[in-house]
């Protein structure tokens, strides 16, 4: 894979399929490219495979079939000891935060830098700056379990972006905050995008995804298709497609199986 291509595409998926152990195929024949410096939304009903797709992107799963390349390296063929370098270029906001409960807010956010062997004084400066910026200045040294749900989400986001990653993957980053705060957070992601990061946000919040006119990937029934919305917010006809009854949510993976 050439360096030019590597620079142009952050990720290229070609006919990727994924199944968990003996389960059904959650994703089937998924193909897409993530261009450098772009902004994407990832939508789809509950259980469709959004988190699964993000896990493939942050190298926590290997595809069952197909070729998935991140930063020009095929995930399935990259040796284990080359993965850390790739992972340091990726920042992840997990759906359930995954903060280390025994560490303070500061240490949680500092983790990606320390793991990468950054000098302690640089760590200290960068982290303090970022925490002030997201408004957690007063909670720097408390353990994370003492934070409210929304505050924990902010910490998770700070940790994801502190290492100035080239690819930011955020799973439902606005699930625990109200609309106003959600807007500000999206703003932060937009700023980082302008600074050169590719951003992918998985969300249930259709109004949010609709309002901003970014390219949108949609997962359902194991397939992925892309929809480019116009630059203006427009209530979309496709929204009706999500009005499925509750039984369907539970069985989403079953659907993918047949």
């Amino acid at each position, binding site marked *: 894979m050439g360096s030019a291509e590597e620079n142009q595409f952050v990720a290229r998926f070609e006919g990727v399929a994924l199944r968990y152990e003996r389960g059904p195929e959650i994703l089937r024949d998924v193909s897409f490219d993530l261009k450098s410096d772009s902004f994407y939304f990832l939508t789809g009903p509950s259980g469709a495979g959004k988190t699964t797709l993000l896990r493939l992107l*942050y*190298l*926590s*799963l*290997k595809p069952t079939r197909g070729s998935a390349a991140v930063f020009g390296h095929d995930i399935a063929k990259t040796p*284990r*000891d080359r*993965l*850390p*370098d790739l*992972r*340091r270029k990726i920042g*992840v906001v997990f759906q359930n935060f*995954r903060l*280390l*409960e*025994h*560490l303070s807010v500061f*240490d949680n956010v500092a*983790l*990606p830098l*320390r*793991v*990468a062997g950054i000098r*302690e004084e640089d760590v200290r400066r960068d982290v303090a700056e970022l925490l002030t910026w997201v408004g957690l200045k007063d909670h720097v040294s408390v353990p994370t379990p003492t934070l409210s749900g929304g505050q924990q989400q902010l910490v998770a986001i700070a940790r994801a972006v502190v*290492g100035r990653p080239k690819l930011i993957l955020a799973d439902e980053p606005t699930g625990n905050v109200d609309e106003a705060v959600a807007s500000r957070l999206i703003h932060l992601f937009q700023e980082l995008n302008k600074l050169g990061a590719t951003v992918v946000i998985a969300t249930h919040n259709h109004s949010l995804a609709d309002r901003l006119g970014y390219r949108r990937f949609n997962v359902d029934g194991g397939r992925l298709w892309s929809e480019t919305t116009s630059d203006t917010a427009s209530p979309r006809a496709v929204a009706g497609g999500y009005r499925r009854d509750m039984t369907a949510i539970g069985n989403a993976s079953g659907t993918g199986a047949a």
Partner: protein
Amino acid sequence: MLGHGSDLPFERDPLARFLPWLIAFMAYLAVLALAGVQVLSTTVGDWHSDLNGSLTVQIPAAETAEDDQANVGKVMDILLDTVNVSHAEVVSEDRVVALLEPWLGDKDIARELPLPQLIDVNVRQDRPLDFDILKTRIEDAVPGATIDNHGVWLRHLVQLIRTTEIITVVVLALIGLITAGTVVFATRTGLAIHHDAIELLHIIGARDSYVAWQFARRALLLGLKGGLIGLVFGAATLFALGQLAARLQGTMLFEHGLAPHHWAVLAIVPVTVALIAMLTARITVMRSLTSML
């Protein structure tokens, strides 16, 4: 090198408080076993060289010294005439007295007894000896003389002590194994407890060695702590036993205490234990991690 402290919540799992004591106990046992095995092997070594001669001929005291001499002469002739006998030597009166002394409690009493003559006989290990023929010949030559497989009971005692020695070495190996096993399981427990945190570290970009070092460093410290505690208690126990043994001077058990180089061997215990712990932890972690993505 110890960096900013651990990323994993080790302080929270009480294993960290427990492990050193378990390791201390193991180190304690190792120190005692090692001391025991050293003392025993020195002592048995001495006895063994004493027991090179495998037969003893005993000639009852005669009326006069000349008769004694004559009897001894006759027996020596027979012995030296026997092909398989490599060496025969009259035991000096002093040694006979010394042998009897612990039993009778006083050298002077022993000297006043009409002592039997003893001849130590070395037999070639490579050829069988017809014990019965030799016995008959000697008994014919000097009535009342007896020939005796040298100190059967002492030989048995040596055998018992050798067995004890082997058991001790086995116990020592067991202790090493258990220590390693403890660390393996403590580490695996740690890996299981901290599985999510470790996965997170990986996703964030940590290398296996970064994670393994967190475990290895902890095992090293806990092992060293435990080993030192064990050594201190072990040394105290040995000192107490030594004091006691000193009172038994003159009896054949415990002729030798612990020499300085024995103590040096004991001092290696905590270091060994700590290294076993560290390496075990590191290997365990590195192995387990390769199965993670």
